[in-house]
């Protein structure tokens, strides 16, 4: 997370870390006691669920809890190194017990509409800047939704943003997700402080670069796919 700040304990209790050999590779969101939602591209290299460990809690070095993966379900239309349909669900070998520090995030209905300039948060253990260091503590940054039309302008992403993607950040750059935040949550809160998962960190050019905001997989676009795989 570029230009963010360390998250308070239990602020984002659904955030999880996907690791291979103890190295954090991607973020993910807890959507059920045995289910995570993340990006498909996280599994371009390591496709075997047995290689992965999931950790929960605000710090990587002393996790609250860990779990092994039982299975990885990648969207049927996803193709490696492409950006479309960059979504996957992960089943844990055993359910977690919820607590004040471990909770699931709400999934929005497929009809949920978010307006440009809505304030949202993205969180993760990714690099603190392009090619920068990786933190041990979870980072958070508040950014804004940018309409796909603006994001598809020539000087931004020139038409690369499809309806299954959502654009968030600032055209002025700085506050952004970064390498290692992939798969992590982009969330919005309703008027009763209930948080909904809007997006999954997917791709972007660099981190915090002007006219290159972050691109997220639009969760509402895949709401029925998620239901069909997890029954949530």
């Amino acid at each position, binding site marked *: 997370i570029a230009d963010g700040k360390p998250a308070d304990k239990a602020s984002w*209790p659904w955030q999880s870390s996907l690791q291979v050999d103890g190295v954090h590779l991607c973020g993910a969101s807890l959507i059920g006691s045995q289910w995570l939602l993340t990006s498909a591209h996280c599994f371009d290299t390591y496709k075997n669920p047995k290689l992965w460990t999931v950790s929960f809690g605000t710090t990587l070095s002393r996790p609250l809890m860990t779990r092994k993966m039982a299975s990885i379900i990648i969207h049927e239309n996803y193709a490696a190194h492409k950006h479309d349909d960059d979504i996957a669900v992960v089943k844990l070998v055993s359910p977690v017990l919820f607590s004040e520090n471990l909770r699931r*995030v*709400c999934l929005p209905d497929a009809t949920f509409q978010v307006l440009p300039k809505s304030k949202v948060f993205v969180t993760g253990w990714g690099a603190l800047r392009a090619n920068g260091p990786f933190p041990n503590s979870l980072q958070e940054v508040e950014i804004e939704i940018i309409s796909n039309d603006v994001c598809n302008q020539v000087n931004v992403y020139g038409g690369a943003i499809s309806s299954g993607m959502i654009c968030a950040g600032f055209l002025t750059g700085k506050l952004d997700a970064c390498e290692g935040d992939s798969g992590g949550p982009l969330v919005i809160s309703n008027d009763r402080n209930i948080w909904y998962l809007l997006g999954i960190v997917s791709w972007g050019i660099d981190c915090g670069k002007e006219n290159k905001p972050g691109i997220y997989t639009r969760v509402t676009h895949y709401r029925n796919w998620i239901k069909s795989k997890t029954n949530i």
Partner: protein
Amino acid sequence: MYQPGILGRRKCSWKPWMVALIITAVLLALAIIIGLLVYFLAYDQKTYYYQASFLIPSIKYSSDLSVEQSRLRTTLKEKLSNEIDVIFQRSSLKHHYVKSQVVNFRPSNDGLKADMLIKFQFPLNNVDTLKRQADSILHKKLQSTEIFLKIDISLPYLREMNAAQAENILNSDCGLGMEYPQTAR
């Protein structure tokens, strides 16, 4: 007969500061012992979770009550928790009552049934008495007409639940996380 010589009074060889030190040490030890006794007897509380089931005759079950985060569900949950808050916060258990939360709504012939979890902190040496008190407070209060909650006669008394299972249920609602800083809105 020789008058036994009167032994010269042995000069007390304790210096005043030694006497003061010993008295202080004794008083300190007493204070610690009494403090520990008071702590363990009165203050060493443990968290207890109880399942309760209530009947709401005036409300019919609707499928919207099973939709997570629906306004009907969240509003009714808040209303029930507030009701239980008021009952115990105005009772002799006000210092032991922590919170309550609806975990489930069920349809029933007589209206709507609500399963709740109630969290207390009780001193270890007085749990059963206080639990009976909680039951009797609920029974007394829910008999009065002005309250819309009734005891579910099929499950009339509080039933203890283990902490991990209870915390799992209490935290199973989705989306509870950072409190949005009001100023940020």
